[in-house]
């Protein structure tokens, strides 16, 4: 046996362990999201849809964020709701849906989950690079958001990306959703107030109608093997 063969075997095992570790982290993360959605049914599918829109937006950024970190941040961005009373959270979400607004209608505590989530995830070292994105995903471009009232580019880019994706998700998933034309208009209104105007511009440049249909198809066929 040539020693080079043995070294290759080591390299193969190293790659396997790396892949398994990453896959395990993602599986644990998915289990947490499953727990969140079981406890707070209005959140069912929300994280997956935010992942989808976040990834689409990231792909058209001039300097995209690291895809794995952004995907994990999107999965976990609302995990802090686990640290709040389930029924109250469901009530706040229902109130925001009734008000058809992402701008804070509902309850004073609605946005505390962002900071709670970042704090909950701190023990996981691999998650630390993206915890600021989770913590600040309810900041507003005009500085009137939570938890710190950061404004403009002081808000971490990942948090601004999540914010755009979450608005898109919110208005397309209401009981009476906005049309995509309506969503475009609403995103335009929020640009410069709640959302980073350049990100909104990039997002509106995406083929939203096609992407939305693709996602609905994927959702409808999830697990069917189609």
């Amino acid at each position, binding site marked *: 046996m040539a020693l080079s063969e*043995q070294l290759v075997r080591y390299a193969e095992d190293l790659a396997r362990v790396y892949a398994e570790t990453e896959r395990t982290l993602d599986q644990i993360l998915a289990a947490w999201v499953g727990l969140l959605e079981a406890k707070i049914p209005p959140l069912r599918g929300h994280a997956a849809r935010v992942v989808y829109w976040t990834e689409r937006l990231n792909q058209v950024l001039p300097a995209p964020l690291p895809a794995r970190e952004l995907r994990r941040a999107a999965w976990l961005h609302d995990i802090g709701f686990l640290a709040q009373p389930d029924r109250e959270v469901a009530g706040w979400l229902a109130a925001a849906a009734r008000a058809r607004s992402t701008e804070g209608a509902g309850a004073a505590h609605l946005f505390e989950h962002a900071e709670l989530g970042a704090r909950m995830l701190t023990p996981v070292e691999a998650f630390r690079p993206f915890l600021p994105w989770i913590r600040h995903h309810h900041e507003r471009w005009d500085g009137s958001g939570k938890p710190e009232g950061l404004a403009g580019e002081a808000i971490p880019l990942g948090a601004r990306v999540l914010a755009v994706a979450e608005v898109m998700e919110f208005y397309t998933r209401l009981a009476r959703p906005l049309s995509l034309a309506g969503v475009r208009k609403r995103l335009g209104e929020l640009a410069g107030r709640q959302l980073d105007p350049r990100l909104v511009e990039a997002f509106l440049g995406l083929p939203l109608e096609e992407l939305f249909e693709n996602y609905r198809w994927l959702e409808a066929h999830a697990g069917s093997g189609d």
Partner: protein
Amino acid sequence: MRVLVIEDEPLMEDLLRATLEPLGHEVVYSPTGDEIEALMERHDPDLVVLDVLLFGSQSDGFEVARRIKASPYRDAFVVLLTALEDPESRAKGRASGADAYLTKPFSPLELLDLLGARG
């Protein structure tokens, strides 16, 4: 866990050290198993990783394994490490009393699994 590595190839020794020491195992090394009883007495290892073809030694790994299993240190877990894949060599490995038989190039994960199973 204390691991005795008997291996005549220095790079293999380095690889085994690099595999085991970061996980907290203590590795002791010998290029030959000719004086295996003395080595076992001195180090009292939990596990012996044993190359079969030991260049420059009078005893091959099968013989060394057999002597370990005939000694007061027979409880040590013995892993034969060899490029010999033929059924006859495997049969000799079994007959030697060794607890496991890994063929080179071996998987370090497989070796670690054996250690995990050991304790």
